[in-house]
């Protein structure tokens, strides 16, 4: 959590006080203290185990995702079945006590600051209390006791919905106050996203509660946790593997950087520009992601071009130019085996095609060029113009956009160009954050004369100087 605003502190303290109020009447409730202690210990143990096993893995414990198990699209935390089983078995005040020791005492990954622990404890306490309250008022405990089944499901379902609702409301508040998410966005989707995963864990919790009260006793209930634990473990593995996979994609790009020094950061920026265009065109998230990969990997074929040629200063001979123009085909060849790229492959192969058919490798015309390739072509040219190259200085963003608009229809798809103009023009503008783009790594080469050759564009599809525009039109 970054610097915490005063209002966020007040909010966290209020939530914690709310949890204390929920748990206060516990002495009047004739709570079974042994069961409360056991559940609290279980909850803390689950949390401890999760930290030990999955420690340092950011991503499922983003500040907003704390405990709700939804905000990041991740599953509920591993202790959710225990928490809900406690809510199904214990009186509300006692149920509110269950999550407190774990949330307050167990250290998170590296260092969990006190406000966050307090927040988690308060939020989970209130959530558990609400779930238990709803369950009791519907007569859930009797249904659990007698294993009266369709009805027990109904009561438990209502309790789960209440739990999700409370957590989503509280989560939205902290997102707005501490993370400064705009108010109208803070609550969007929190409740709906958490409903299915928490619901599934709620079923496990219900099973625990029923077995706990059944003739085989608590031991049988504890066995329920094992499959949940394995499921969590696999999920953590999945995330680790996915992160490693993304690092490998980056490594592919960095391998290009090793060969072709001056394009550092170019690939990632093209990925971002492609993503902006795709979003602007209203593509679904999956396609947007594929187009981001297409942008990132569009020049991967340069791995196949001799390093001497890529680093050559000064004019290229026609043969040398032909060799460099093979890079889209090399790129297609390299990523051929990567199944999930799908449409990104055709973008890599065709990102140097032009609408009027004068591009390469196949000279496709207009709609023959795959949509993804038309997106990446615009993004590629835009970034090439707005960053400094060995053959040209960086141009300001408006100048680059004007240049793109001028070549729309002949070289670029006007739809994509308009989408980019809209996306850049809206609010934030163009401030790509690139990991590889630290100040030291961004070497500025002395300007050299523009690359001469048969086509009027530089190797990256940048429209050439105005004097030679005749060939473009």
């Amino acid at each position, binding site marked *: 959590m970054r610097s915490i605003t005063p209002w966020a502190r007040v909010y966290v303290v209020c939530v914690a006080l709310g949890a204390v109020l929920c748990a206060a009447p516990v002495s009047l409730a004739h709570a079974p203290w042994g069961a409360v202690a056991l559940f609290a210990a279980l909850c803390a143990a689950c949390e401890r185990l999760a930290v030990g096993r999955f420690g340092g893995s950011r991503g499922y414990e983003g500040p907003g995702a704390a405990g709700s198990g939804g905000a990041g699209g991740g599953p509920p935390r591993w202790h959710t079945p225990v928490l809900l089983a406690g809510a199904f078995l214990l009186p509300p005040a006692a149920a509110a006590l269950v999550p407190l020791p774990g949330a307050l005492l167990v250290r998170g990954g590296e260092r969990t600051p006190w406000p966050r622990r307090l927040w988690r404890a308060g939020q989970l306490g209130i959530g558990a209390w609400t779930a238990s309250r709803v369950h009791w008022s519907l007569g859930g405990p009797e249904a659990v006791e007698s294993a009266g089944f369709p009805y027990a499901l109904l009561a438990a379902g209502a309790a789960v919905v209440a739990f999700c609702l409370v957590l989503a409301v509280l989560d939205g508040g902290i997102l707005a106050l501490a993370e400064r998410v705009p108010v109208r966005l803070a609550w969007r989707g929190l409740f709906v996203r958490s409903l299915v995963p928490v619901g599934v864990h709620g*079923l496990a919790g219900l*099973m625990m509660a029923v077995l706990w009260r059944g003739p085989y006793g608590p031991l049988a209930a504890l066995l329920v946790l094992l499959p949940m634990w394995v499921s969590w473990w*696999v999920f953590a593995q999945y995330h680790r593997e996915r992160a*490693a996979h993304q690092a*490998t994609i980056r490594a*592919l790009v960095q391998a290009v950087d090793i060969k072709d020094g001056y394009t550092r950061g170019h690939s990632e920026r093209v990925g971002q520009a492609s993503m902006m265009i795709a979003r602007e065109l209203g593509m679904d998230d999956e396609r947007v992601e594929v187009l981001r990969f297409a942008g990132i990997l569009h020049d991967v074929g340069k791995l196949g071009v001799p390093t001497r040629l890529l680093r050559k200063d000064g004019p290229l001979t026609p043969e040398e130019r032909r060799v460099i123009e093979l890079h889209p085909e090399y790129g297609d060849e390299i990523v051929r085996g*990567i199944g999930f790229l799908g449409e990104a492959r055709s973008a890599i192969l065709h990102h140097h095609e032009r609408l009027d058919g004068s591009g390469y490798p196949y000279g496709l015309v207009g709609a023959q060029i795959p949509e993804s390739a038309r997106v990446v072509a615009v993004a590629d040219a835009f970034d090439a113009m707005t960053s400094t190259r060995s053959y040209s200085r960086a141009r300001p963003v408006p100048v680059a956009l004007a240049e793109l608009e001028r070549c729309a229809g002949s070289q670029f798809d006007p739809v994509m160009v308009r989408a980019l103009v809209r996306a850049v023009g809206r609010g934030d503008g163009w401030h790509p954050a690139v990991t590889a783009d630290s100040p030291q790594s961004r070497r500025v080469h002395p300007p050299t004369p523009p690359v001469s050759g048969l086509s009027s564009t530089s190797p990256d599809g940048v429209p050439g100087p105005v004097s030679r525009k005749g060939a473009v039109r």
Partner: protein
Amino acid sequence: MRRLVHVAAGLLTLLSLTHTLTTGLDDRTVALSFGLLVALGELTRWSGPESREAAPLAAAGALSYALLGETAGRATHHGALQVVAVVLAATLVGCVPHVARGQGPTADHLARRVLTAGFAAVCFQPLYNQGVFEAWGGPAYVLLLVALLGLTSLCDAVLAAALAHSRTGWPFGPLLRDELRATLGIGTAVCATGVVMALAVAVVGLWALPVFSLPLLLTQLSFRRYAAVRATYRQTIASLARATEIAGYTPAGHARRVAVLSRAVGRELGLSEPQLTVLEYAALMHDIGQLSLVDPVPAGATAVLPMEEQRRIALLGGAVVRQTGVAAAVAVVVERQADPYREQPVSARIVRAVNAYEEKVWEAGADGPLRALEELRLGTGRDYQPEVVESLARVLARNGGAVHERIG
């Protein structure tokens, strides 16, 4: 060995089918419900290259039916033979769509499912039906079920290792170790689910089946996604490895051949599954350092370069590999591939020897393999570990020069 297992499974099947057909089904609804569960689990199975238990829900359903003593407080009467018959029939029904897509289960898979369910049922049902456990208290009964399933999964692991051993000819010990390690992972979930379902059905009746299969379906889904991302990850690593080939630094298919052969040699030498993964990734990326060379080495033959140059390329490669997010052990192997073998970790020894072999075969042409092995043997004083070279020779001899192991 394999035939023996198949015959045993076949006999058990025959026996249980005839028995069930002549006496009819006891507790029809229960049998149907569990059959449905097993079929559903089989329907949602996935087929990946490294799935040890592709259908955990089906396995758990079969085990819980084998251990089912009562439903909602009423005792059941099905015997062990009926369990086998129901499980087999449900598995076959669930397999129909997979068979239609040409990805049906193998005979090994069916034999394992039948024998495992049969083992658990034979251990439990006759004793239960005679009322041996009636005097046992709740917790003791739970512990009994857990112990029974522990025993069952042990048998299953031995069975799986034996089947894999006779199918592939890989050494039995490491296979059994890998199977047991896998048992600790998803095997635990399957066993615990089997026990919980049997107990839950005993308490609340058949309602417990849908309620508890949903969480397990979640587990199955996680596994599936994990397998999928693992597969794409391998593909990406392989693509990165192919970059050197397309750049003309190494002959086409070199990285892949070195990876396949290294994996086979590693298996011969008894490396565990995680070690084999490290070995495979390192072998795929061992030439990546050459990307930093301005001009390619002729035919990518690094084994003939001066020592210092080889080390430099290896270090450059290690630097690239460190960025890929694979385990640090992989980068270490890539970095140290050019060291004398006594200073190397075992994976690096394998990569070094196999790489040299591949390059020499590539140069030599027709009688390449024999001559290449001879040259490696001459280099065992310093460069190549004798045991690795001998293991390589055995692998090559066994497969007649061609190595078949699925990777990537």
